[in-house]
């Protein structure tokens, strides 16, 4: 079971995380909520091993991970399907990738360069990439940001079927998402 223990993180003299401790339930979806600027993205970065914590221990996070970042972090010049192959290698055929993209409403996009997509389309491409990458733990930072209600419904359903059995840690500002999507909700508080 992935466990974070007494994680502390400050930027110069600004304390962002102070003794954060939590057992993330294996194979379940955990929602992280909290005010803007309270340190949700920072916590994910620590858990993903992108920035070191000042102190504390991480147990059980040394598994294949995948992520939807707060910003999409797609390679703008690559086509959508090339962005996906970049992380999956040859595990999926061209038509398999097209099928996945189709499921989130990106039917016409596989061969378009990412720079030509709209914000919401990029978001969906980032989601598909994260779900097709081989992983046991998924980090989703506001994954449905910028999607209209209908699209969000489709994408949410798609994500739900794809993450079955995986440990998911996702950040949201939407309480309804917590209720319908998450198995557990953790609130982060603003420190100063």
């Amino acid at each position: 079971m992935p466990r974070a223990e007494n994680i502390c993180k400050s930027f110069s003299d600004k304390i962002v995380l102070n003794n954060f401790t939590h057992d993330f339930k294996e194979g379940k979806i955990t929602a992280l909520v909290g005010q803007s600027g309270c340190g949700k993205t920072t916590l994910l970065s620590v858990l993903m091993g992108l920035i070191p914590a000042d102190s504390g221990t991480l147990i059980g996070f040394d598994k294949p991970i995948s992520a939807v970042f707060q910003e999409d972090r797609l390679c703008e010049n690559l086509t959508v399907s090339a962005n996906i192959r970049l992380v999956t290698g040859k595990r999926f055929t061209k038509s398999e990738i097209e099928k996945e993209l189709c499921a989130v409403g990106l039917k016409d996009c596989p061969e378009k360069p990412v720079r030509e997509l709209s914000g919401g389309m990029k978001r969906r491409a980032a989601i598909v990439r994260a779900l097709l990458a081989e992983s046991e733990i998924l980090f989703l930072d506001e994954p449905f940001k910028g999607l209209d209600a209908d699209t969000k419904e489709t994408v949410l359903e798609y994500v739900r079927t794809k993450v079955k059995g995986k440990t998911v840690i996702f950040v949201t500002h939407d309480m309804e998402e917590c209720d319908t999507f998450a198995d557990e909700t953790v609130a982060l508080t603003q420190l100063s």
Partner: protein
Amino acid sequence: MKKALLISAGILFWLIVWQVAALAIDSSILLVSPLDVIKRLGELIITADFWQSILFSSCRIMLGFFIGLVTGTVLAVFMGKFRVIRIIFSPLISVMKSIPVASFTILALFWIRSENLSVLVTFLICTPIVCSNMQAGIDSLDPKLKEMAKVFKIPALRRFSGVYLSQLMPYFRSASALAIGLSWKSGAAAEVIGIPDGSIGEKLFMSKIYLETADLFAWTAAVILLSLLCEKLFLLVVGILQKKIERM
């Protein structure tokens, strides 16, 4: 198609202006007409000497360009990677960018035979241009994509091509377009100063000595056409490569 038509119209306009001006001035020394130039080019094009000069200069100028392209790119990578190298080479690159072709050429003549002069000069002109353009590309690499590659554990080769090359290719493309044009300008200028036997520069120099304005124009036209041809061919190859990278 419509674009090509408009471009042709623009070219035609200036050819007419030129023809009218030549008729008005009416001196084959001060200004020859475009028709005279085409006629002279037609005479030259069937001589072996013409093609030998073209081959002589093209090979050397393009060789200088390629060495400069590689050196500039490699230097930019090292300058991006190691601060010491950046500190040491930055002033050199800045100075090299503003040294006149003539100064380089005269200096180069002290070191090497005039035959290979244009290789050295185009190399010296291309390197700083390519280097500073590629540096701009390397500086603009997104560190967040580096983190992304780390999270997804993308293997080295795929990471290099998909994450880095895909970001750098547009810079490489514009750097090489700029450098090819400058190569021909500086290479020809160097040859006029060094006058290596059997080069385009020698032909340009001779046309000055004998006041053969038609020759001057014909050879200049040849240089312009060659420069365009090299640029288009090279960019075509770069473009194909770029497409390949973008589709993985």
